[in-house]
């Protein structure tokens, strides 16, 4: 199949190639005898689920890591250095990456950002005229028609992304790698980025485009490389490929390990959302959550999952629609009121929003409800330890002491406490945003079991995940969030991960 992609243009000049590369990190075979090449002017989509080896492949090309076996050539030259010199070598040969985390200084102008740290000038005195002229030219290449003296602060996300790409282009690269450049963009905005990608490819620059949005990929890439478990499983023509086939390649034969979920008769609707809208991400979202149900929300990065949860629970305000709790409308949900109504929320980024690392496991646990561990307003050390021990035992948290600083625990154990604090508060509706992110396999399985157990107690749970394969394991029902609204619905036991994934990435 690799040959078929190559045979499309017999005159193709190879810009970068990886031959037989293997890379092992402690406990993982991240890259397994992978071979890959890309030609000038080619846009190649790189597909694969989390942990499939995409990042490792990119690290091989950028010289961020040295392969255990195999070789990497850029523009015909092999990378020979090791350590940080290797990344410099790759950089000098023209490899550039545009990462998701944008690195712009909002308070400086577009031109200053483009040349950040390498401002043109003499003896430390900047030549603004020259800088602005060069900046205007670089931005025009991408169709970014903005005055170079404008501040970055007022730019839209797509414009920022284009500016990042323009900055990379100033170094006259041969290969540009874009890591999910449209994941945080609305559809119309993403269009601008894709137009820019087509332009740079037409200038003869090779582009590797990491994305899961099939409609985007079909627009800009002729071929796609699919990775799974550190191996390159196929490189195919995008035009002739069926989305379901691509999904099957990405997920492999993992399907079919669906745990049997007991089906219960349910009646009470605890949460009903109707026609919720949040510009520009979400529109006319409607669903019901029943007592004791685990409802999965599937969707790609940037599909608005977090925004949806935060709108429901009142962390951010939404534009239109209603949220009903136990049949009573909460017109403008306020976070503290929702907590009082029995909600609990675990954020997606555990470190930034979930834990207070310096404080103990106990204090991180009881922070949702101090009153039950206090007497006359004074915290009781004994009650606090007992309450914490209860959570630790129920959720299988590994910690030396109840007052060990939570920052020293592993990610999985931290996450269990972040969930467990709502068990301590006895919340009955839990909104869990990516509760298994950055957690090891064993802890993941434990978290699934915990969620099932909490549901069996009659608690209702919304489970948001971008790891499709875990949805059938925990959810009674899965809805797919795509293009800002809920599309397909899958009901256990008919939650087929291939179908869910296809629904997530399907085109218009």
């Amino acid at each position, binding site marked *: 199949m690799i040959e078929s992609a190559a045979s499309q243009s017999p005159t193709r000049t190879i810009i970068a190639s990886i031959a037989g590369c293997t890379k092992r990190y402690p406990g993982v075979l991240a890259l397994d005898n992978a071979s890959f090449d890309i030609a000038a002017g080619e846009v190649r989509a790189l597909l694969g689920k989390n942990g499939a080896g995409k990042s490792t492949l990119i690290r091989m090309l950028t010289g961020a890591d040295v392969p255990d076996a195999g070789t990497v050539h850029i523009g015909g030259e092999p990378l020979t250095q090791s350590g940080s010199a290797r990344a410099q070598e790759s950089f000098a040969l023209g490899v550039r990456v545009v990462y998701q985390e944008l690195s712009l200084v909002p308070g400086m102008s577009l031109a200053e950002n483009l040349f950040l740290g390498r401002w043109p000038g003499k003896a430390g005195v900047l030549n603004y005229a020259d800088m602005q002229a060069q900046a205007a030219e670089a931005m025009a290449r991408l169709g970014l028609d903005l005055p170079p003296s404008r501040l970055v602060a007022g730019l839209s996300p797509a414009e920022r992304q284009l500016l990042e790409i323009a900055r990379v282009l100033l170094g006259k690269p041969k290969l540009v790698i874009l890591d999910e450049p449209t994941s945080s963009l609305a559809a119309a905005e993403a269009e601008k980025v894709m137009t820019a990608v087509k332009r740079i490819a037409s200038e003869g620059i090779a582009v590797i485009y990491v994305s899961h949005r099939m409609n985007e990929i079909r627009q800009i890439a002729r071929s796609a490389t699919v990775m799974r478990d550190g191996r390159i499983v196929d490189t195919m023509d995008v035009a002739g490929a069926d989305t379901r086939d691509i999904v099957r390649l990405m997920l492999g034969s993992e399907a079919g390990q669906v745990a049997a979920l007991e089906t219960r008769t349910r009646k009470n609707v605890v949460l009903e959302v109707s026609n919720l809208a949040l510009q520009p991400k979400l529109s006319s979202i409607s669903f019901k959550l029943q007592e004791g149900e685990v409802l999965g929300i599937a969707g790609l990065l940037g599909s608005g999952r977090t925004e949806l949860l935060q709108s429901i629970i009142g*962390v951010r305000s939404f534009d239109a629609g209603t949220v009903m709790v136990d049949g009573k409308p909460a017109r403008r949900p306020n*976070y*503290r009121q929702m*907590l009082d109504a029995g909600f609990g*929320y675990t*954020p997606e980024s555990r470190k*930034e*929003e*979930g*834990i*207070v*690392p*310096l*404080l*103990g496991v106990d*204090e*991180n646990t009881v*922070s*949702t*409800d*101090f*009153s039950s561990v*206090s007497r006359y*307003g*004074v*915290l009781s050390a004994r009650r606090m330890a007992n309450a914490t021990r209860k959570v630790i035992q129920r959720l299988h948290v*590994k*910690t*030396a*002491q109840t*007052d*060990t*600083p939570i920052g*020293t*625990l*592993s990610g*999985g*154990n931290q996450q269990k406490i972040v969930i467990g*604090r709502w068990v301590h*508060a006895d919340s009955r509706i839990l909104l869990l945003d990516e509760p298994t992110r950055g957690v090891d396999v064993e802890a993941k399985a434990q978290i699934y079991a915990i969620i099932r157990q909490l549901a069996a107690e009659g608690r209702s749970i919304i489970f948001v995940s971008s790891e499709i394969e875990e949805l059938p394991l925990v959810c009674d029902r899965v809805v797919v969030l795509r293009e800002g609204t809920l599309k397909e619905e899958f009901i256990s036991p008919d939650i087929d991960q291939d179908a869910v994934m296809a629904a997530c990435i399907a085109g218009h």
Partner: protein
Amino acid sequence: MSLEKAATTPPSAQRRRGGFAQHMNEVSLFVAIALLYIVFTATAGGFMTFNNQINILRDAATIGIAAWAATLIIISGEIDVSVGPMVAFISVALAYLLQWGVPTPIAFVLAIAIGAALASIAGILRAYFDVPTFVGTLGLWSALRGTALFVTDALPVSIGRNDIVDMLDRPILGVPPAAIIMLVLFAVFAFVSRKTAFGRSVFAIGGNPHAAFLSGINVARIRVALFAIAGAMAAVSGILLLSRLGSGNATAASGLEFDVIAAVVVGGTALSGGRGSMLGTLLGVLVITLIGNGLVLLGINPFFQQVVRGLIIVVAVLANIQAIKRSAMRNKG
């Protein structure tokens, strides 16, 4: 990795939180205080006398009472630079209240309420309008001093004879009431910071405000409450100032805010929030007070005293940070 360590290390070795390393900061401050005592006893005549030790306590009270509240504020990740003008303003306001014939106990309560209300402006601006507390309290710093000077023309506002006010400056068994009030308040603050939901919420907010908010802690209300408490504490200092001077004084307590912040920081509380202790601040207050007292007794030029004080404060914090780093490294290895 840390999980493995946590799981396999015996509990006794894990008991570090309450162990020596955890208190490295306090230990090194004790050493610093001991050194200051040794040096000043040897060089400054009259340092070790009973009267001077009482003086030190009285001076410590001025800084300490404000520093207890400032410690909580700094742990929560905020700052209060309005302390000095607040103390002076309250002493003036109280003097007028007493001149107008308001009964003394009611005047005290009013003074404390005024302090709490004024300081909570900075808290409200922070909690609901995202105005940094440095800016909010800087505004108070200027406006309060300005108001007090404007109203009094920088002249003392005398209160005449007042038994209750005088009583506050009369030593009990040789100890000035200010020092007793300081120590009682210290106990209260130490307790609140360690043993109440409010105190632990302050640490949580300073350590990670997002996580604190999402776990249901009322972050906005606590921020306002912290500044109200700081205002009330400044008012207590203002009352004690009035009793000491016998008049309200718009020019008093100049630069107090810097002594307070210095004491908190020397005491090991991180300006970035989330970390700190009341005991540390108590020791920090002692260090700052001792330096001030000793330098006066040594007869050092008052202008040069400021230079020495600045140097000692920076060196103390530097040494403290190094000591903590070293002990953390040892713990790891």
